[in-house]
């Protein structure tokens, strides 16, 4: 006689109870869920394709930042060589490598010594008598990691400042950042705010020749030509190109705060506050250059170039260009969040409107319900009462699947819903295997209860082998798929694992209990 120990029955019972408990909140509205105890508040996470929202995949332009850094490396090398009075010529940066020619071969050792640093590799090419130096691999990796990490932090700050609901920001691979914004159906504003590096510098405008026009188009030594930001050009005038001294006096990094506001004339302005050191520096600058013009340069464009009428000592500065209110809001977000260490490129953008999401959920639910009904009827027709047992197991499979999704915090996507319906279709496989085996045993003349026992025992190895191979396919999807497809892998894998429990343990208890109670002469399968 087959016997299922009490503890096993209890474990199954408890699992079933908890399965139902954890699946339930998903079907409640938010208010009801809030009244539940904390541990029971988990609902299934809907993917952006189901709830609507924007998905952005950004690439941190690491190369351009590394190029800048190679430039600094060249500056350092120049300084050290000059300090050591070593002669060189034609110093340039190519492929992140600083190259220069040396005049005296006898200087080689001294140059090596002067340039020696832990994070760089130097090489000397006999044929061209050229030195080359670059960051070593470890250093480059380190820098890349740092760049992506910093970018992520700044993106986070900028997006949080926009007030989006539950943004999700993650790094992917070595140089990519994924941003998911539920409920955002037009990511234009987000892209605007991420499209700016927001590198703010304060530089003096040339005193005598403030604009390119005043020199007749000639750029004076020690200065660079910087165009005016087009958004600042109102009315019919031509945009100005300023001649700005190369020396950077202060950068946005010295800011401690920036807020949108209004000037005395009620024009939109951005009010900035420097940190202690920045305030002192700014005070000195304004003292030294009173009555000169100070350019505030954002991402290579002059946003404002006011005259310094008097020293400004408190550390509070207003940028008053011709801004709209929205521009001052955005600019202050950018200044507060800090500048990106490298530019960002949008590689991929996917936006789903809320209507389409709701339609998809409805269609997915319909399809799943129809799939379940069809499979139920099919199993009843094929196996009668034992089909009913299988169906009960199938229903719990669905319940467990939902609670597993909620508990693991997995995301349900549209292909994920398809995965659920599909797993339900495939989940009956274990029961089909068992029931077919039982039938065979009975045909072979085995006694009923032993046939049931043998059916479960013998089908077991097959069920495990066949399910594990299917699971391998699901896992491949989970690890290699992205977004919605990953969601399909999740439901497929969970469904398979759960079906091994429900289809074997649950139906077995049902079948054996029924058998002991009804003591049938023939099996209704």
């Amino acid at each position, binding site marked *: 006689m087959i016997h299922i120990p009490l503890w096993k029955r209890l474990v199954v019972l408890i699992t079933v109870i908890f399965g139902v408990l954890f699946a339930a909140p998903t079907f409640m509205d938010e208010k009801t869920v809030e009244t539940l105890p904390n541990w029971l508040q988990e609902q299934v996470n809907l993917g952006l394709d189901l709830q609507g929202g924007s998905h952005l995949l950004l690439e941190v332009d690491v190369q351009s930042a590394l190029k800048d850094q190679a430039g600094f490396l060249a500056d350092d090398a120049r300084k050290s060589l000059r300090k050591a009075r070593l002669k060189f010529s034609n110093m340039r940066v190519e492929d992140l490598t600083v190259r220069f020619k040396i005049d005296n071969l006898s200087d080689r050792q001294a140059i090596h010594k002067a340039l020696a640093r832990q994070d760089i590799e130097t090489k000397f090419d006999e044929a061209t008598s050229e030195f080359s130096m670059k960051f070593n691999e470890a250093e480059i990796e380190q820098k890349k990691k740092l760049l992506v990490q910093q970018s992520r932090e700044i993106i986070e700050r900028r997006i949080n400042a926009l007030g989006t609901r539950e943004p999700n920001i993650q790094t992917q691979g070595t140089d990519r950042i994924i941003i998911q914004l539920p409920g955002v159906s037009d990511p234009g504003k987000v892209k605007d705010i991420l499209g700016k590096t927001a590198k703010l510098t304060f530089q003096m405008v040339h005193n005598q020749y403030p604009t390119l026009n005043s020199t007749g188009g000639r750029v004076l030594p020690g200065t660079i030509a910087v165009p005016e930001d087009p958004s600042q050009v109102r009315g019919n005038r031509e945009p100005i190109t300023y001649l700005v001294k190369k020396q950077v006096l202060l950068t946005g990094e010295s800011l401690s705060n920036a807020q949108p506001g209004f000037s005395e004339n009620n024009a939109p302005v951005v009010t900035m506050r420097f940190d202690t050191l920045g305030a002192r520096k700014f005070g000195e600058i304004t003292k030294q250059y009173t009555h000169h013009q100070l350019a505030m340069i954002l991402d290579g464009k002059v946003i404002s170039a006011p005259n310094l009428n008097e020293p400004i000592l408190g550390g509070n500065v207003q940028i008053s260009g011709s801004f709209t209110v929205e521009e001052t809001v955005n600019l202050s977000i950018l200044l507060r969040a800090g500048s990106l260490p490298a530019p960002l490129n949008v590689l991929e953008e996917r936006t789903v409107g809320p209507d389409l999401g709701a339609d998809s959920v409805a269609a997915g639910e319909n399809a799943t319900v129809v799939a379940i009904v069809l499979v139920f009827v099919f199993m009843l027709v094929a196996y009668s009462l034992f089909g009913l047992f299988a169906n009960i197991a199938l229903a719990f499979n669905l319940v467990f699947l939902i609670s597993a999704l909620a508990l693991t915090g997995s995301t349900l996507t549209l292909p994920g819903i398809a995965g659920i319906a*599909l797993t339900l279709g495939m989940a009956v496989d274990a029961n089909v295997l068992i029931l077919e085996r039982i039938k065979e045993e009975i045909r072979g003349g085995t006694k009923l209860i032993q046939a049931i026992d043998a059916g479960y025992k013998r089908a077991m190895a097959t069920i495990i082998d066949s399910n594990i191979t299917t699971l391998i396919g699901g896992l491949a999807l989970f690890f290699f798929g992205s977004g919605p497809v990953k969601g399909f892998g999740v439901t497929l894998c969970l469904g398979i694992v759960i079906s091994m429990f429900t289809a074997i343990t649950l139906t077995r208890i049902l079948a054996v209990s029924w058998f002991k109670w009804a003591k049938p002469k023939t099996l209704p399968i």
Partner: protein
Amino acid sequence: MRGLQLVPYNTKIDFSGRRLWAYALALFIILGSFTALFTKGLNYGIDFKGGLLIEIRTPEKADIAGLRSTLNGLGLGEVKLQDFGTDRDVLIRIEQQPGGEKAQLVALQMVKSTLGDQVDYRRVETVGAKVSGDLIKNGVMAVLFAMAGMLIYIWIRFEWEYGVCGILAQAHDVIAVLGFYAISGFEFNETAFAALLTTLGYSINDTVVIYDRLREDLRKFKTTPVRELVNLSANSTLSRTVLTAGSTLLALFALYIFGGPVIENFSMPIIVGIIAGTFSSIFLSANLLLFFDLRKKKEEEPVPSGPISK
């Protein structure tokens, strides 16, 4: 009340006797698929080709011809329109714009300002060249890893011959599904790899069930020719094979009919894959084993002790 015997249980179908026909059919499917793949090719979606995809809902019945000529006038290269779901829904596909990611966004702006505020943008996707390359690479990797994983698992649980034959049958299924994509012109995007892997997973499941039975029969009937055992194992699991395929196909047809346009494009290839997989499991995977001498090693092993005794 008894359940209906949907599939007769004492079938004696000579699967191995018809194996040459099965091989011929498989070969035909494979060659046909390759021909379609090389002549017609796959209809790559934006996941793999890059470009723009916009799903709009117009306030009234969409004038696709009108929209097509308007959008083609923008000079954005190839623009494809298709009704999608209801007659107010239109799917617009615009090819990858030369000039990188920025150019895509510019194109999107152009389309939006041309279509105006009247339409509802239900879905907007832009995929750049870098991402599409990665997605394809990941998809291919997923299929290869899954096949390798399955091969190794079967090798460990059975013998290497079983693994090899199982994977050959899998390859048939993958090629058949790819062929279906090429012939039907169904859009080949990232979900296509989900369809391929589902097919793989389902078909290997089927195959393992038959292998499992064959292994058991090989132990039970030591003198029966392997060819007959192949038949026996395929026949005795036939009822299960058909019933499981039946319930899975029922679920898939429900998805195809009620799941909406996205799921529809995804479930049809899986339906084809399940049919191909069922065929390959019954006719290919076990028959292919006849190329090997399965008894050679088995003879020396002791009879396994276990519940099998009669």
